[in-house]
């Protein structure tokens, strides 16, 4: 009835968050929208955020599930800060997310869900869609339930099945708003519902209904378009951190010729690595779901002793339980990779939220002097490279290695330029077979690694264990001088890994007023903020540490070239502590422990406060 024209606006980047009841299918909607954006050639960053309960009661705050996505025409490193668009499928979703939406942002609400009862459950006094609560936002109300029902009126589907497709309406609508191609979603639906043609048909109908509604209805004054990003040429895919971690391990197995053995016990947010690896038995990947974390790492140690590429995956509480066994791997100098997918702590804490507070646990959380190298991944796709690198070092130095990622990386996705498999360097694994001159703890002069022997090798029968070893012979030794020697040798071996660490790349100028030092998943937020600060002419650089132990040999020199050092972390200052102790520099912290990642603006504000 209106005569307004549809205008296609050009945008640089958009942050959109889908939020609804856990039963509303928001994760799926978000993932599908991500696929579409990726195919539209945008760079993307995602952040799923789901409740700890499997399914909390409908309509409650505890039951709200969200999925945020940023897509842009330029390189981006994060899922973005304040959403430009919030899709709020019910009042609880609105309640929880409203505070994050940027001023004057767009809110799309599914009017049908805003009943009095639901508004009350969410803790609103009245109906927020009508009582002025949203006056500073651009509100679009859509009767999604009704329109979904209408779209399916003649299908004979039951009301529950119909209700379940309303997320497709939302997806269709938003796809239209941002000019996404919905073909990929239809293809995906075809796969998923191959066995249930009526459901498939219903979903496609509703998806299209949403899309067409956007196109035809009058309430939207404009559609937005984000142009493809200018990124490096190549073949791309989207990948989550957990999938990348799993692929990194498989790649390490292929490149080393070692059978991959995973011992694991499920725990959020690490379980998906187990799930992913379980699928790839045709890579000769052995996965063992143990009775607990101790048995999981135990089995991995047994497999390492047997000559396999052994890994174990968990999150904070599970990693705590593994420490005693990891200490055995240190004493017996066996290769082993332990992945800690960090989550909010202490104790059970916030299982579905992200945090970086296990750094000191993995470096120091064992009895005795028990050094372990630690590598931290910095983006979802980087989990691939970090996992691969962890394996390479473990085998080269005959040592357990920690791989740190976190819930944000694990579940977040980014487009990944798929590496050329031929260009990946094979690692050089030698099992000792020569009998002459063999001693179980005779070390390689360079790496200080002891030989790796596969049980079954004739003539090399020997015994290892957790009691202090005599260097060379590997016999049990209570000698005071040998103990001191071994303690220092184990430390020197880990320290020696510095030679494998590439010199630090400073982003920005090599000296200046401030260097922002980060590690792990804060990479994207820091890089974006430093870019912004530099655009404003500030003398700020960015250093991101990958090997947390040992720290890179040149790190002290690099940092000392700046007047100030700022360390943003999702903890109370764990890396900061290490830097201060190691280099005696007055590093300052920017700390956030909310279970959510930093936003660019939080870091930017931190930078400004420290200049």
């Amino acid at each position, binding site marked *: 009835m209106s005569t307004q024209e549809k205008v296609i606006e050009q945008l640089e980047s958009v942050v959109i968050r889908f939020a609804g009841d856990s039963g509303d299918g928001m994760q799926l909607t978000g993932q599908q929208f991500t*696929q579409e954006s*990726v*195919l539209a*050639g945008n760079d993307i960053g995602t952040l799923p955020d789901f409740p700890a309960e499997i399914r909390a009661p409908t309509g409650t705050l505890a039951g709200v599930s969200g999925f945020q996505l940023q897509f842009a025409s330029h390189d981006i490193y994060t899922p973005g800060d304040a959403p430009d668009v919030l899709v709020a499928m019910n009042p609880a979703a609105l309640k929880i997310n409203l505070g994050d939406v940027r001023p004057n942002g767009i809110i799309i609400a599914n009017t049908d869900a805003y009943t009095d009862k639901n508004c009350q459950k969410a803790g609103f006094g009245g109906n927020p869609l009508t009582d002025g609560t949203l006056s500073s936002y651009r509100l679009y109300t859509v009767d999604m339930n009704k329109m979904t029902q209408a779209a399916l009126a003649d299908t004979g589907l039951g009301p529950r099945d119909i209700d379940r497709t309303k997320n497709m309406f939302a997806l269709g609508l938003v796809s239209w708003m941002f000019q996404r191609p919905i073909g*990929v979603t239809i293809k995906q639906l075809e796969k998923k519902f191959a066995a249930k043609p009526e459901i498939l048909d219903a979903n496609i109908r509703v998806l299209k209904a949403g899309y067409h509604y956007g196109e035809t209805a009058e309430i939207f004054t404009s559609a937005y378009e984000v142009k493809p990003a200018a*990124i*490096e*040429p190549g*073949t*791309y*895919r*989207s990948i989550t951190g957990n999938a990348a971690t799993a*692929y990194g391990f*498989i*790649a390490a197995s*292929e490149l080393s010729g070692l059978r991959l*053995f995973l011992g694991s016990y499920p725990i959020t947010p690490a379980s998906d690595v187990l799930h992913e690896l379980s699928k*790839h*038995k*045709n*890579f*000769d*990947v*052995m996965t*063992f779901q*143990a*009775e*607990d974390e*101790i*048995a*999981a790492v*135990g*089995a*991995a*140690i*047994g*497999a*390492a*002793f*047997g000559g*396999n590429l052994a890994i174990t995956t968990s999150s904070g509480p599970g990693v705590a339980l593994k420490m*005693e*066994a990891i*200490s*055995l791997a240190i004493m*017996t100098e066996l290769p082993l990779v332990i992945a800690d997918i960090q989550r909010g702590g202490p104790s059970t804490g916030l299982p579905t939220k992200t945090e970086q507070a296990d750094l000191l646990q993995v470096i120091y959380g064992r009895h005795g002097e028990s050094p372990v190298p630690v590598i931290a991944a910095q983006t979802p796709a980087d989990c691939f490279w970090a996992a691969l690198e962890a394996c390479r070092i473990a085998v080269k130095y005959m040592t357990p290695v920690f791989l740190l990622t976190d819930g944000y990386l694990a579940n977040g996705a980014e487009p990944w*330029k*798929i590496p050329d*498999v031929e260009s990946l360097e094979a690692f050089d694994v030698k099992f000792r077979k020569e009998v002459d001159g063999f001693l179980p703890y005779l070390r390689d002069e360079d790496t200080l690694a002891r030989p790796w022997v596969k*049980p*079954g090798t*004739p*003539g090399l*029968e*020997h*015994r*290892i*264990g*957790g009691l202090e070893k005599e260097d060379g012979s590997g*016999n049990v030794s209570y000698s005071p001088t040998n103990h001191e020697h071994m303690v220092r040798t184990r430390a020197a071996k880990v320290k020696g890994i510095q030679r494998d660490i590439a010199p630090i790349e400073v982003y920005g100028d090599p000296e200046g007023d401030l260097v922002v030092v980060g590690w792990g998943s804060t990479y994207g937020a820091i890089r974006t903020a430093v870019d912004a600060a530099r655009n404003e002419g500030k003398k700020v650089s960015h250093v991101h540490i990958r090997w947390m132990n040992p720290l890179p040999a040149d790190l002290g020199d690099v940092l000392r070239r700046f007047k100030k050092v700022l360390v943003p972390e999702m903890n109370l200052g764990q890396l900061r502590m290490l830097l201060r102790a190691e280099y005696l520099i007055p590093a300052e912290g920017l700390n956030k422990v909310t279970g959510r990642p930093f936003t660019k603006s939080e870091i930017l504000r931190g930078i400004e406060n420290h200049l």
Partner: protein
Amino acid sequence: MAEAAVKLTKKDFETPLDVRWCPGCGDYAILANLQRLLPDLGIPRENFVFVSGIGCSSRFPYYMNTYGFHTIHGRAPSIATGLKTSRPELDVWVITGDGDALSIGGNHLIHALRRNVDFNILLFNNRIYGLTKGQYSPTSEIGKKTKSSPMGSVDAPFNPIMLALGSGGSFVARSIDIEAKHLQAMMRASHGHRGTSFIEVYQNCPIFNDGAFDMLTDRKVKSENVVALEHGKPLVFGKEADKGIRLVDGKLEVVQLGEGVTEGDLLVHDETNRTQAFLLAQLELPVPVGVFFREERPTLDDMMNKQLETASSKKGRGELKALLHSGETWEVR
């Protein structure tokens, strides 16, 4: 199993290290018996691996000239599980104590038993924590006075055989440290069994629990106190083989043979019957030794390895390149 190229002898399984148990410790006998048995099994020496936890008993691998891993307290079954499933061609033995296996390691033990991983568990049961100098263990009797229970222990003990049967164990046996022939026979049978085999070995600790099994080893009385279980044979015991065990109304009863009771009235041991094994495990006097129960069922290592083969034969050996390119991809030019 492949025949060893060279015939091995007991000496081949001895290490040059001094054996460091107390004089008179039952562990010596168990070690010697196994060293005597191994050359007979026709397995190349390099294929044996002994995995142990922590305790006096768990020092065992140091004295066995094979591959060996003296791990941490209670975790030997887990470590052996990783080893055996990933290297099924190895001949893996788990050596453990009543503390190591039943106290801190109880969970790993019962899970190994249910999963039926193909290794042999020897549990040296001296009913005490030896290495830590004499605290009561999960097999110590109620009322036992030890350093940590000066007024007597108040913990009801486990019956390891019942626990193993209740966990689904597929080979469950008992023997005694110094009964060389019997012990070797049990070890041989356990080795012959595919799946987790569990032998409880009564072991004397002369330092902290001396004489715990005197009744069963003292030449003068032992035949009155021990009954040997043999598949298909009636349960006869006594110096003169003049006593037996009868099943009456689902309960066991010791009877004197001859007074109207003949061997034909006695319970015949059936090692394929888990329930009967469970009943026998509860017998307190005479104490049964031998194979309580044995059953063939798939082993974890077999099943895991078969899945790998099936996956490769069905989907084809995985290719890294294809994996990385799986799912939606797109080209940026």
